[in-house]
């Protein structure tokens, strides 16, 4: 037997190595590449919604500013922070498997999941606030159609809709369609992410990972970071653009 083949078989000794890969390194890189190709399809999927947002914002700037300013900037900013911390704990989970510290991996995964659940909890509070203010678009909730109270000049009630000059309620409703579609799809991705993290946590619990084999942690991490990136764009676009016009009530 040639020498080259003999070394290949030595590497093949790891039980997680599938027969169609030369070695663990090639298997790990192929997995990461596959995940990135999937993430490209995700980028195009969310890209379509970002494009819709861009076009309608350009067409109805005043309505979008009015609707955007009604969102709770504090909750949005806190949620951004929560997701960034969760991305950090996820990155640390990957690092700890690479150096073979399984206990640290388990702790980091649990922290990541707690932070992910916190994000969803805060999002639920925000959705409930919008429900209370009759801002759920169309007849998504049949018993509570879109019918916000519009504030008169001088009125400072935060639950009423403050329209700036040139804005109309109909186009504010369009903003909320886009808001719920985008944050809803993002939240769905978070829920799927929590499911993935549960599987990875169980695998870590059963000591499946090692410095030689940690591709599942790494690939799940790619997904988690991707969902974080979507929010990094959603936060300024939905919550921030137009804040400087907050005083200009028409």
């Amino acid at each position, binding site marked *: 037997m040639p020498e080259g083949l003999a070394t290949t078989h030595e590497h093949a000794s790891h039980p997680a190595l599938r027969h169609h890969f030369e070695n663990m*390194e090639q298997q*790990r*890189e192929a997995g*990461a*590449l596959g995940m*990135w*190709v999937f*993430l*490209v399809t995700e*980028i*195009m999927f969310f*890209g*379509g919604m970002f*494009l819709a947002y*861009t*076009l309608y914002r*350009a*067409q109805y700037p005043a309505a979008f500013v009015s609707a955007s300013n009604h969102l709770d*900037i504090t909750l949005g*900013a806190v949620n*951004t*922070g929560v997701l*960034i*911390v969760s*991305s*950090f704990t*996820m*990155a*640390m989970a990957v*690092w700890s498997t*690479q*150096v073979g510290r399984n206990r640290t991996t388990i702790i980091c995964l649990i922290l990541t999941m707690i932070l992910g659940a916190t994000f969803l909890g805060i999002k639920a509070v925000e959705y409930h606030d919008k429900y209370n203010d009759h801002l759920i678009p169309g007849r998504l909730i049949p018993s509570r159609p879109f019918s916000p109270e519009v504030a008169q000049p001088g009125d400072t009630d935060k639950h009423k809709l403050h329209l700036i000059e040139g804005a109309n309620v109909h186009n504010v409703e369009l903003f909320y369609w886009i808001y719920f579609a985008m944050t809803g799809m993002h939240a769905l991705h978070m829920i799927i992410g929590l499911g993935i993290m549960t599987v990875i946590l169980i695998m870590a619990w059963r000591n499946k990972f090692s410095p030689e084999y940690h591709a599942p942690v*790494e690939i799940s*991490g*790619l997904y988690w*970071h*991707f969902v*974080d*990136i979507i929010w*990094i*764009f959603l*936060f*300024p*676009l939905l919550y*921030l*653009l*137009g*804040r*400087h*016009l*907050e005083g200009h009530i028409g």
Partner: protein
Amino acid sequence: MSEHIVQPRVYITIFLALMVGTGLTVVAAFYDFPGPLNAVVALTIAVIKATLVVLFFMHVRYSGRLIWLVIGSAIFWLAIMFALTISDYWTRTWFAPM
């Protein structure tokens, strides 16, 4: 190519940079910049934050050319989708019948 292990201090640095970026974008949102600069500032900060996540948290800085090619293709096709659609909406009124 063997795997590059990103050290925790790199992750901590990136994490702090992301937090600072979040703070900056909130503060900047309340300033009244001239023209469309508010959107430009917000998007620039968002792109920088996303790039940091991709390069370091997602290890792309240390990944092979194939991964770079896949990400480049995503940006390229996204740019086509945005450029062609926006050019349509933007120019529709240019030749409207009088």
